[in-house]
């Protein structure tokens, strides 16, 4: 099957393929973030009661994300796409800093360093894809800018070891949770937009 049978005239990756690749990539990003969070948790956070402090502190908690199936299904697909785009944008900058700052953690294992770099790269790749998908679905305009500012860099550079480790823990906990939301919302969107809710 030739890729562009009639030359470059309206020859583009179909929306179905774009969404399929976004779902695969989001699945992969969340898989990596789960592994990284659990590895970091095992190595640095055991018995330090970080979870209780971390739960309310995600910089994206201001984004109004659906918390159950009904809520997710009631949102118009353009708004849900925009929300996913906003979440990915909100993590682009923090992940860049995570990948560099994690190098400064004492005896940080190679696996954590590699995953931090891989997650940053794949999240950026997924962001590129989502901008393409949103542009395609919203016929051109990239929707109102949903974005949640991150101001956590200073806490990743704190002198006090305990506070700095907690800052990393919170970031990984929050990204682990948000990447699962992105993965789940994209699977919903794919089934809704491509398979008429009949996946």
């Amino acid at each position, binding site marked *: 099957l030739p890729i562009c049978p009639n030359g470059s005239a309206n020859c583009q990756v179909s929306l179905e393929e774009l969404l399929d690749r976004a779902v695969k990539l989001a*699945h992969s990003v*969340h*898989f990596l973030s*789960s592994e990284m969070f659990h590895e970091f948790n095992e190595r640095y956070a055991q018995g330090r009661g970080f*979870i209780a402090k971390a*739960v*309310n502190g995600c910089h994206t*908690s201001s984004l109004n*994300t659906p*918390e*159950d*199936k*009904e809520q*997710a*299904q009631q949102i118009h697909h353009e708004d849900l796409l925009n929300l996913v785009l906003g979440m990915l944008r909100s993590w682009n900058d923090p992940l860049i800093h995570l990948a560099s700052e994690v190098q400064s953690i004492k005896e940080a294992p190679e696996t954590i360093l590699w995953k931090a770099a891989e997650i940053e790269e794949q999240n950026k790749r997924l962001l590129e894809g989502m901008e393409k998908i949103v542009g395609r679905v919203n016929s051109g305009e990239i929707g109102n800018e949903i974005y949640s500012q991150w101001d956590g860099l200073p806490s990743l550079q704190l002198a006090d070891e305990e506070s700095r480790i907690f800052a990393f823990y919170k970031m990984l906990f929050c990204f682990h*949770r948000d990447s*699962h*939301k992105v*993965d*789940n919302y994209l*699977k*919903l*969107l*794919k*089934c*809704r937009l491509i398979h008429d*809710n*009949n*996946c």
Partner: protein
Amino acid sequence: SPPEKPTIIKCRSPEKETFTCWWKPGSDGGHPTNHTLLYSKEGEEKVYECPDYKTAGPNSCYFDKKHTSFWTIYNITVTATNEMGSNVSDPHYVDVTYIVQPDPPVNITLELKKSVNRKPYLVLTWSPPPLADVRSGWLTLEYELRLKPEEGEEWETIFVGQQTQCKMFSLNPGKRYIVQIHCKPDHHGSWSEWSPEMYIQIPTDFRVKD
């Protein structure tokens, strides 16, 4: 004496839409004792009581869709009270995303077939558990099947991802096999129970052509 401290033993969501928690009472101290399940949700001060003590049977609390949120940590405790006093369980933290354990797959079929070049193979097909809404994409299931000859010791386990069918080419001719399938959410949660055992007799001529 006051009742002993109860223990929250398990919380489970069968389809990532509702969930249930169970507790085990301690000794009642010789007096009629009742139990109250209280919970708060991350980011909220408010404390709620169990919405439904009945649906899931004794010593349980059932959270229907309206009371079930994901990516939110529930802080759950159970208090045992009798006329002499009361005692509170340790807090149990739950994010429903992580306690999804589906029911087993259903409608399993086993069929012996012959391919174009007369090569015999076994086709297995199955369906997701009815409660699980995989059609909308809210829940994505992965499957694993296991099989072994009836008198064999060792199960052979095969992960088949999100497919709901599988073709098996290399099986022992003349053997009677036991087959089971189970499923799990694609990221978090736990494997379902295995489906009931099914049997298939592999004919002796199920030979790969010499």
